[in-house]
Structures are given as C-alpha cells and as structure tokens.
C-alpha cells in the first residue's frame, strides 16, 4: 500500500478506536442509568430512589391481580423471582397485561412500599408461536403437572 494511503488508513482506525473508547467510557459511567426500569428487588432493598417517579418491571405474579367491581382500580404484584412489589393503578391496562407475563409500572413508591402507578406497560417476550402450538404446549405442561400430582398422591397413600 502507498505510504500516504497507509497513513490515512491509520487515521481512519484512530477515529474508530477513539470514538469507541470515549463512548465506551461514557456508557460505563452511565451503566444503571441506561435501564428503563428497576426490578422489585432493587426497590424493596432500597437501592431505587424513594418518593421520585420511577418504573418497576417484572413478572405479574399468578393469582395476584385484584380488580375493583365498580371502578378501573387494579392491584397486582410484580416479581423478579426474588422479591415482590405491590402495584396499584387506576385505568385501562394494555391487552397483553395478564398474570404470568412481564409488565412495567411507572409511578412513585409510597410509605407502605406500594407503587402507585400512573402508567402500566405490557412487556412481551421474543417468542412467537401459533395459537395451536401454544395450546398443545400448555396441555402438555398441564398433563405433566397432573401426573406429578397423582404420583405424589400415590406416594402419600403408600
């Protein structure tokens, strides 16, 4: 390669390395600030700031959704598998908001460690399955659960 071109190639590589290093350092400093939400554990343990607007994300605990009969009030628990956080919200929740699915609640945590949410977003995963396949998978899962329960019952009887 011509020495002049080689010099210019080195300049191009220098631009690339310098920007990568600078941006890398900035991202390293920002780290947690790049997160869109806190996990229930971070909030319960006090790692998340108190009395300020924040977002909490996690799975909606099975059987935890309580709805009011006469209003749009809804209460549910979010979990990250370790800790649980109670969320209260008045309004319409997204279609994909169901138990066992991920959701993100925005609002402030009050004295009772309850997140008073002003917005609920449903977070969907990266899996896509046709309804029939999903049904078949659910049935197989149920059958496995029933088998296990029967085996346990038999073991108890003995």
């Amino acid at each position: 390669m011509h020495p002049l071109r080689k010099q210019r190639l080195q300049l191009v590589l220098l631009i690339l390395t310098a920007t990568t290093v600078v941006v890398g350092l900035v991202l390293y400093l920002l780290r947690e600030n790049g997160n869109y939400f806190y996990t229930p554990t971070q909030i319960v343990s006090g790692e998340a700031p108190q009395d300020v607007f924040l977002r909490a994300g996690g799975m909606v605990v099975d059987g935890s959704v309580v709805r009011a009969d006469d209003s749009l009030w809804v209460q549910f628990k979010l979990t990250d598998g370790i800790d649980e956080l109670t969320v209260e919200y008045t309004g319409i929740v997204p279609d994909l908001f169901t138990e066992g699915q991920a959701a993100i609640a925005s609002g402030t945590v009050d004295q009772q460690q309850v997140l008073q949410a002003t917005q609920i977003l449903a977070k969907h995963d990266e899996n896509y399955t046709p309804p029939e396949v999903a049904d078949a998978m659910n049935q197989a899962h149920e059958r496995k659960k029933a088998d296990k329960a029967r085996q346990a019952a038999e073991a108890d009887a003995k």
Partner: protein
Amino acid sequence: MNWQWFHRLGSPRWFYQTTERWLPWLYLAALTILSVGLTWGLAFAPEDAKQGNSFRIIYIHVPASFLALAGYYIMASAGAIGLIWKMKLSYMVMKAAAPIGAALTFVALVTGAIWGKPTWGAYWVWDARITSMLILLFLYLGVIALQYAYQSVDAASKAGAILALVGTVNIPIIYKSVDWWYTLHQPATIKLTSAPSMHPDMFQPLLVMILGFYIFYALALIVGTRSEILRRERKTGWVRELAAAEVRS
C-alpha cells in the same frame, strides 16, 4: 500487493455501464421476493398466540431495522474507502446510502410505534433500544446535511465520511442495547448463536422478507449511485455522449 484491480473498480464509468445490465434482474428479484414474502407473512403465516394478528408488522419492522443497521456499515465503509484511497465512486456510494438508510430507520421507528401501541400500551418510550435507534436516524440526517453544507464536493464528502465513521460506534450499541440494559423492547428473536425463538411457519416468511429487503437495498443503492455519477460526471465526455444518445432516441 497489487492494488491495480481495486482502482479500476473505482471508475464511475465502469460502474455505470456494468450495473446497467444488473438493474432489470434486480427489479424483478426485489419485486418477486418482496411480494412472495409479504403475501406469505400477512396472509398465510399463523397468528401469534399472545399478540394475535398485530405481530405481523414484524415482517416490515425487522427487515427495515436490519437494513438500517447494515446500511450504516455500508455507508461508513464507503466513506472510509473514500478517505483512504480518495476514490470518487466510493463517496458517491456513501452519499446515495445516507437517504436510503434514513428512510429505513424512519420506517423501523414508525412501524415500531404502531406495533407498540396495541402490545405495550404506548407508541413511544425512551428505552435504550428506541433511543439509540433515534440517534441512528439523526446520524443519517447529519451525513445527508453535511453533503449539502459545503460548496466543494471534496470537503462535503470528507466531512460526511468522518461523521459516518464516528457514528459506527452506535451500531453495536443498538444491537446489544436489549441485553445491556433493562428495556421495554424485547431481546432479539433472531440470534447468531442459537435457533430463532419463533415458530418455523412464522420464521420462514420473515427470512424471505429480509432477503427481499437486502435486494431492494442493493437496487436502491445502485440507482442512487448511478444518478449521483451522472450529476458529478456531467462535464465528462462519456456522460455528454450518453445524454446526446438519449436525446437522439
């Protein structure tokens, strides 16, 4: 090493004449593959168990995002080749790539917003994926703006190439944002190292659409570069001859 072949590749006239023969095939391939993929994806692929039919926007959203990212590397590489070898054709490719990439980024953002409303419950959120994608749109717009900010073509090309190179750092950030931070956007469905987390009946049309978008991108880039060649080489003998022949016919 002999770099002669590389310099011959950089002749605008050679590029213009060679790609002339490719164009009809590229038009045909893009049209066929995109219509097959769209029909397959929108009409024949099964609906999603959770999202229903609204997931079908993936057949536009994902290919557009793919090419918005890949197109940025193409633009930046063309800029780097222009800077190092002072190759005029390379700068023309870079200039042609910027508006195509900007349009694809815009499509990715708009389809994402339309998809977000029924599934997440919001058109727009400031999570890491969506924000970094918006920065990509601004980078593309910046490269376009720099092309028109200078009187001298050479200065405009150099400035555009440097901005394009600096912006490449954003591409891996966009790609990895869903893994590095907690985002509302879900992680990647198509992974380099493992099988896609999507049923084959839904995944096959998506692959067809991605292929179709690649061919469409190549076509748009070639057409854009050709018109830029004519604009910049309008004073040369071969372009004058071409224009004269056009007038005669």
